[in-house]
């Protein structure tokens, strides 16, 4: 054991350095969020609970069943009667929130909203019916929010296969 090593060992220098750091951190701003009282802002395009979009007060969904076909966990079931979609059900407990239903829909009828607080006491409340899904649209996609969602996250669009103007670059330059 060298002299330097000996001094280091008896002075606890590395432990003191670490404690100085933690002491310094004690006076900096807390990064934690007191969840139920304050909520973090979620990013646009968050993949939360589903909504069926409307145009002119009517559901856009025509019931072609592409979302049910692509769904990897097979949580969507659709029933049609007399030219109407009578039942559109999403089993939230099975859904894995991959967002493939949004991508598969050629009509832009389904979207994922920013709602992530939907725990329930029984299974039935977690079966999303058509009415619940349509009311979700009014609740979580008010005004132009829905339109902006589709503009950004209903992909791919033609611009993904080309160079759109104003593409994001480092330093903001083209």
């Amino acid at each position, binding site marked *: 054991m060298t002299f330097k090593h000996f001094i280091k*060992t008896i002075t606890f220098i*590395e*432990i003191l*350095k*670490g404690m100085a*750091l*933690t002491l310094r951190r004690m006076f900096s701003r807390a*990064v934690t969020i007191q969840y139920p009282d304050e909520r973090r802002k*979620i*990013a*646009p*395009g*968050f*993949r939360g609970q589903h909504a069926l979009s409307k*145009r002119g007060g009517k559901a*856009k969904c*025509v*019931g*072609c*069943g*592409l979302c049910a*076909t*692509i769904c*990897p966990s097979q949580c969507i079931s*659709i029933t*049609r009667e*007399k*030219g*109407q*979609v009578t039942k559109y059900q999403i089993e939230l407990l099975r859904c*894995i*929130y*991959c*967002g*493939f239903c949004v*991508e*598969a829909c*050629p*009509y*832009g009828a389904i979207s*994922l909203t920013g709602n992530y607080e939907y725990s329930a006491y029984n299974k039935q409340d977690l079966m999303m019916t058509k009415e619940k899904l349509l009311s979700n649209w009014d609740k979580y996609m008010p005004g132009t929010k829905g339109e902006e969602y589709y503009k*950004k*996250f*209903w*992909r*791919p*669009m*033609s*611009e*993904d*296969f*080309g*160079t*759109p103007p104003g*593409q*994001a*670059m*480092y330093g*903001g330059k*083209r």
Partner: protein
Amino acid sequence: MIKMQEPEKIFETRELNVNMGPQHPATHGVLRVVLDLDGETIVRLTPYVGYLHRGIEKLGENLSYFQALPLTDRMDYVSAMSNNIGYCVAVEKLYGIEAPPRAKFIRTIVGELSRISNHLLWLATHALDIGAMTVFLYCFREREWILELFEMICGARLTVTYPRVGGVRNDISQEFIDHLVKFLAEFPSRILEYETLIDQNRIWLKRTVGIGVISAEEAINWGMTGPTLRGSGIPYDIRKFMPYDAYDQVEFEVPIGTAGDTYDRYRCRMLELRQSVKIIRQCLEKLPAGPVMADAPKFVLPPKDKMLIITHPVNEIAYFIDEKACKGCGMCLRACPAKAITGEKKKPHKIDQSLCLQCATCFVTCKFKALKIIPGGKGQPEEKLVELSAQPVADEFKKAQEALVAHFDFIKKGPKVPEGEVYVATEVPKGELGFYFVSDGTHKPYRMRVRSPSFIHAGCLERLCKGHLVADVIANIGTIDIVLGECDR
């Protein structure tokens, strides 16, 4: 009458059999380890895996290549982005397509971000297992930052499903780049913080130096990859040896250790954090403009705005069967979800306009082009529809029809893949993640096999722990960085 036992038999030394896990807090998931102990020394160690087995390989055989992508998120959920990229690179090779340069750079950026987040979680839990609580909290502070960046680009924090076969889902925004630059400026100083806390700490050194020593030759023989192998001094990194994405266009070093013990592997990962920052910075500077999806019409989803003329209800379209072209095969009849089509075999079918959902399923299933999409035909009497269907279709409308057919085909079946097999390895934070596909010429893989680093590293556990004390099992499970989701698949 009670028989007296012989004195030697009473004081016989026996090995103690101890079960560790599957619910032990320090086993990083549901790993069960059965220990045979001589006092406190480990004589035998048997890892039991499979508690998190979900049959991802078998599930992959029953889903199309596009659909199976979210499964890879759930393998190594700590670095889901890297797993997605590995899957996409492998399927791209099978298809014979290549992602455009911008997509490659974006994938490299998010892949390295995922490497940082994985190493942070590894450091956090490894330090916590050994007894350093503060590092755990500090690492999670930065990991949260990265997860927020992920949320910004794809809307999900953990199971991202962001890369796609042939590119990425959506382009990155200016906001994301600004936040990323801020993160890169701040992060190196945060690495120093972790190192201040544990790098020279005497408890940390006592628990890691000389624990789980494995020589370079043995590490190769045991099939180790990634930082676990590099700690023994082998500079094997797939990003250097078989570059995928944009790794051939960036400069970085492969940090290696010398002693091959737990401490060296820890040092390797800490240096890798710095290299990742370096790679992301270069990628940002070199990020080219251009498309983010490959121009391979058969293998990627067609653009949605091209079919808007038909799918937009404003156009008031009607579907109509041309009696002359209809052969009465019954394909549309069976496919129609609303059962609006009626007719007998080998006789022209008819659409009941009141039942029709206008979903275009019949249009895309008809092989004889007997179905017509008529703009402005909704609610018109049948005579008018006959009249309208005779009119030539506008060019724009024709293109939209083609795009719609391609879209339906892609979703309902997925692209057909030529026969063959492919193995592609990518460097995920834990080591070499390989995807092996056997295609029999259909839309789904005949066999999907995943070579997961965690599974192979779990096998090395006995070699690393033998002769050490019980407390060192925790350090050794930490140092090989296993996630049981990936191990059991």
